[in-house]
């Protein structure tokens, strides 16, 4: 029964999202575009988190993807869609190489090293002036789909759907058990035949490809890259906050978190033009204090409590 309802709700949401651009204006559409961007990053970050690894390097792979997409278009004249793919492939390849060394680290050490690596990417892009345009970045001669907002929206939407599907596959398949085992106790996982390293590398690459492609789409949509904006720490911290406020270890949490924070921040700004960030910060603090499991966790608890009272 509840499974039916869930499917129906999911379908309804999907239809709504597809029809969205047709009955709303350009403004909600541009907000949606950026909500989707953060949503993808939040879901992909959560996918890695399910192994217990906290990445602080989202902005790094996002930025790499952005630069790869723009530079491959400028230098090789490739079609935009292909450059997005290249953004993903390069981010994934780098993740694969890095992963071999970095994935031996745990906890805070992994977090810091991913953060440092992201910074290193940014600094390299800033300093390779001749190739990357340096601190001023590079411009694309034209936007993807000639800047058609519907098509760019659907592109990002498609990427989000793809990410959600991958996330759900990972949640429903064997992979889920491997990841949960790794997160809980690596020694037990190893002794149960789980090749920890293999799974960590796979997830690290997959999520980096997703982040790289998202960066690519974003760069193609806005038509430029600069080290400052493409590697902005926002791309690391906001998805993290969104996933956490929504609820971690699932697809739903990051999705809900991104929607909520994305919309709330926009709304606040319109009503409190000077100082909305204070309120935003207070909201983050309050949610963490009073909903430690995130919104989805809270909803689940309420549902359980309701069921028990029946």
């Amino acid at each position, binding site marked *: 029964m509840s499974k039916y309802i869930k499917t129906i709700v999911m379908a309804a949401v999907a239809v709504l999202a597809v029809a969205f651009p047709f009955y709303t204006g350009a403004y909600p559409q*541009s907000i949606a575009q950026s909500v989707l961007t953060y949503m993808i990053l939040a879901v992909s970050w959560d996918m890695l988190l399910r192994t217990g690894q906290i990445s602080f390097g989202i902005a790094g792979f996002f930025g790499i993807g952005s630069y790869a997409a723009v530079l491959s278009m400028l230098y090789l004249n490739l079609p935009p869609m292909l450059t997005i793919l290249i953004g993903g492939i390069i981010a994934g390849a780098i993740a694969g190489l890095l992963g071999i060394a970095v994935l031996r680290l745990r906890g805070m050490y992994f977090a810091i090293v991913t953060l440092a690596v992201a910074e290193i990417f940014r600094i390299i892009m800033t300093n390779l002036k001749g190739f990357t345009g340096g601190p001023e970045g590079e411009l694309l001669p034209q936007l993807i789909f000639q800047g058609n907002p519907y098509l760019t929206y659907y592109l990002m939407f498609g990427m989000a759907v793809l990410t959600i599907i991958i996330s759900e596959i990972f949640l429903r398949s064997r992979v889920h058990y491997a990841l949960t085992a790794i997160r809980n106790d690596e020694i037990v996982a190893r002794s149960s035949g789980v090749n920890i390293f293999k799974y960590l590398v796979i997830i690290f690459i997959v999520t980096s490809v997703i982040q790289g492609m998202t960066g690519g789409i974003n760069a193609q949509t*806005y038509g430029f890259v600069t080290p400052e904006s493409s590697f902005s720490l926002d791309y690391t911290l906001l998805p993290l906050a969104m996933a956490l406020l929504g609820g971690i270890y699932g697809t739903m949490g990051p999705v809900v978190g991104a929607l909520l924070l994305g919309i709330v921040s926009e709304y606040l700004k319109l009503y409190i033009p000077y100082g909305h960030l204070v309120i935003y910060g207070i909201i983050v603090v309050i949610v963490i204090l009073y909903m430690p499991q995130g919104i989805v966790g809270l909803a689940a608890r309420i549902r359980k409590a309701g069921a028990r009272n029946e």
Partner: protein
Amino acid sequence: AGGQGEQGEQVEQGEQAAEKDPIKLGGVWPLADITGDQGSKAAQLAVEEINANGGVLGRQLELSVIDSELKPEKGRSAIERLATVEDVDIFVGGMSSGVHLGQIPSLKKYEKVTMWTGAASSKAEEAVGPDADWYFHLHPWDYTQGQSYVDGWGDISEKYPEIKVSDWFLAYEDGAFGTGSFQASQNLYTELGEMTGESFKSAATGGGDYTAVLEHAKEYGPEVFIWAGYDADALPMLETAKAIDFAPPIYLGAPPGWPQGFGESPLSNYVMLYGMWAPSMNSVSGVSKHFYEAYTGKYDGEPQTYFAPLSYSAIYILKEGIERAGTLEKEALIEALENTEYDSPLGQTIGFSPSNIIQHQGIWGQKILQWQNGKREVIWPFEYQTAEPVYPFPGWDER
């Protein structure tokens, strides 16, 4: 500004608005930054002044301001909202080339008349392109600014032959602003002499160690030492210069703004600077004086950045343009704006002409000023000069 103000105004104007809707301006600034904060407030000041004097074409002006948060995607959404939800007639605002790059695609989509006060990077000019006749850019581009300095120093060394300006050392912050300035000036300054330079990490972006760059400058021994960084760098850099005993004949700063109370520091005396405006302009420009008094009267505190008079000017230029056109109709308005001759609080009379790529560039250069006894005195252009230059920059032990 913003949502609440709007509602209030709408109620007030209820009756007359039926036939005479207000003229809607949409502004995008980074409101948490001093530039955007004061820029937007100065623009609001201009709007209120104009409305108090009967508005434009008998209609009131209405300014909706949205925060760009210094983020491209937020800046873009702001444009989208202003264009579709607020349905504004004209865009104003601006600060940060990075944000502007994110906004340009949307601006191009709507092709509404745009009076932009920020973005010096020629990358932004490239992105706007040559066809955007609706695009009016007030702030100088990095290269036009560079050229103005070359002209200025040429004039100065002609008038004051003792001032030597042929050996340059440029210390620039390693972000887009500093690097852009360096690239733009490197070629231009060959007219004056030799220029070398080195980047440093600005305190504004987490740096703030100037020892290396100043050591190198000292080794080089330039006639003019110039730095292009941010307000946060101004005093610490001077302190380092003093500590390592580096006192070039001209010590020149080109940040977009200065820290609070810079002039009160004894170190600041006789530092030269590039700038668009300073309170000392009040003595040579009536408009400046009026602006200054109105601003300080309405908001407590002085305008700290030139973005205030610049944004104020943007509104007045639009007002005059609309009045001259007699309509908001785009073609007519553009034509009217092309004929702008606005006597600005910045001193100069602003008009528009094509720059390298775009059709309507308003301001071409900045001024050369000098901190003297806590005040920024204008040295060049000579027509606005408020004080004679002090040369050379006195050595640290002579103060």
